[in-house]
């Protein structure tokens, strides 16, 4: 992966975010949708690092998303602590949690790691309810930048978009460093990577920590947009799966994956929910069908599928330069 290619992709990502910004200015409903898309894009960018680049399939990003949302809201209610600090504390707590989970579970094989990460948010949800934190309402202080609260959703979009852009450039930068090369080698074949001098457990942990930071930042901002914290929303398996869905549709292991995925999935979801409100569950059903298709064909997500589709279409219509046949579906490593 040449260096320039990845930075160019990050720039395209920023162009998309600016486009999103334009759309966000048209109405409050659009601003809120754009903010949601940017937040989920940030969450997806985290998942993309650990499971898109480095390989171990993490199904527990909700643990960090939920923990930061919870801490920033609780500290705001109990000690009137500004959410900026609350989110920072949430990020630190998530990092500690990620180190503990990582060291304990990254040694296990793919299936067991996925299972362990799936179980942890469920435990956190039950414990939160056990200590009687069922619903935490975010205090209302009107328009106050100090408390990260605004009448319009636009400022939330700007914050989330800036963080997402930073995540994109960081992903692009990663591709040009040793860590990025190691991530990809581990994803391709962990045992061969270990035999080639790569400390696989340590680098899987680094990927997991980076993902935890991004997931907790996303959870922190989401907490300001959402009005009420409930353990069901914060720690539900669907939260982790949404991150996976976005990256797989946008393209796992690519810089642009999270942005494209979020730009497609979130607006499409809200539109189907809006126009088919009498058919509850239709939007998630559509996601699942797309995810099923993507899981079969390629790890790079929907995008290459479309590219191949247009290619074959071009050939069928008798374009002069027939392309080389598409790459054969690769056999996964053991």
């Amino acid at each position: 992966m040449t260096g320039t290619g990845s930075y160019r992709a990050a720039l395209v990502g920023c162009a998309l975010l600016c486009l999103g910004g334009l759309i966000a200015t048209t109405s409050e409903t659009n601003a809120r949708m754009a903010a949601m898309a940017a937040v989920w894009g940030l969450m997806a960018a985290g998942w993309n690092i650990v499971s898109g680049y480095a390989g171990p399939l993490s199904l527990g990003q909700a643990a960090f998303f939920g923990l930061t949302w919870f801490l920033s809201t609780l500290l705001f209610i109990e000690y009137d602590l500004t959410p900026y600090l609350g989110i920072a504390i949430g990020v630190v707590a998530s990092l500690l949690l990620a180190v503990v989970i990582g060291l304990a579970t990254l040694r296990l094989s793919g299936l067991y790691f996925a299972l362990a990460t799936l179980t942890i948010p469920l435990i956190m949800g039950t414990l939160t309810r056990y200590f009687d934190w069922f619903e935490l309402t975010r205090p209302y202080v009107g328009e106050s930048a100090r408390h990260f609260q605004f009448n319009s959703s636009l400022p939330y979009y700007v914050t989330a978009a800036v963080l997402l852009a930073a995540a994109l450039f960081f992903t692009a930068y990663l591709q040009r460093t040793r860590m990025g090369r190691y991530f990809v080698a581990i994803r391709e074949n962990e045992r061969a990577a270990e035999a080639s001098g790569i400390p696989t457990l340590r680098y899987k942990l680094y990927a997991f920590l980076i993902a935890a930071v991004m997931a907790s930042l996303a959870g922190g901002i989401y907490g300001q947009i959402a009005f009420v914290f409930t353990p069901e929303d914060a720690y539900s398996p669907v939260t982790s799966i949404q991150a996976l869905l976005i990256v797989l549709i946008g393209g796992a292991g690519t810089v642009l994956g999270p942005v494209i995925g979020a730009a497609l999935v979130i607006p499409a979801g809200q539109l189907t929910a809006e126009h088919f409100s009498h058919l509850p569950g239709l939007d998630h059903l559509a996601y699942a069908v797309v995810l099923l298709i993507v899981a079969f064909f390629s790890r790079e997500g929907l995008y290459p599928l479309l590219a191949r589709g247009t290619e074959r279409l071009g050939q069928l219509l008798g374009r002069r330069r027939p392309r080389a046949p598409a790459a054969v579906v690769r056999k996964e490593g053991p």
Partner: protein
Amino acid sequence: MTTAEATTATATVLELRGLGKRFGGLRAVRDVDVTLGQGERVGLLGPNGAGKTTLVNCVCGDLKPSDGDVLLGGETVTGLPPHRLFGRGLARTYQVVNPFPALTALESTSLGALAHTRSVREAEEAGDEALRELGLRDKRDVPMRQLNIVEMKEVELARIFAGRPSVVFLDELLAGLRPSEMSALLDVISDVAGRQGWTVVMIEHLIGAVMHFCGRLVVMNEGQVIADGPAEQVARDDAVIDAYLGPKWRQHA
């Protein structure tokens, strides 16, 4: 390659002292004592299930030995993980012929160099040099999945070359090759190993190919070393023939 060259063990590079591995009750490998000198070329042979791969896995850190020690350059390295051993110069090729399909030849090769430098640029320069050493310079930006089987094996060697090893374990590298490709690859290996002063251990089933390359043979059967010495002598050793071809063959040998 005269036998003399094989036996003048100057400096001891790798020493296995009473190495053993148990899986529950099963003793897969039992008290293996072998010493490798600088530049030696050893063939590790034995029928399927003789414990060859388990022994190599214990030496290269994939498995923690149950008893005994591994000394690399005089230092005890028993139980160190594979990536630490690679950093200290003990490398192995990987049975899966194309472990990193999504990478280009250069990217795959430069992984080896990354063990010694943080900078990707330096690693790619080392990778470039390694590819030139293996005659694959023109395949630099070709994705691995578009190389043929010989080229893939050469990239494996290039990756090890870029890691600047002292001891190299070639784990069934010749598997799946036609005889002509095999001898071509063996020439490349002996050429590179000679220039770099590698100590090479070749793990194979095919005695013929190994005889051509290795001065010394170590033969295992049922977890134990049953013969260790110059190639011609070991090839005629009764115990080896029994292990490989079964007792009734002895009278024809």
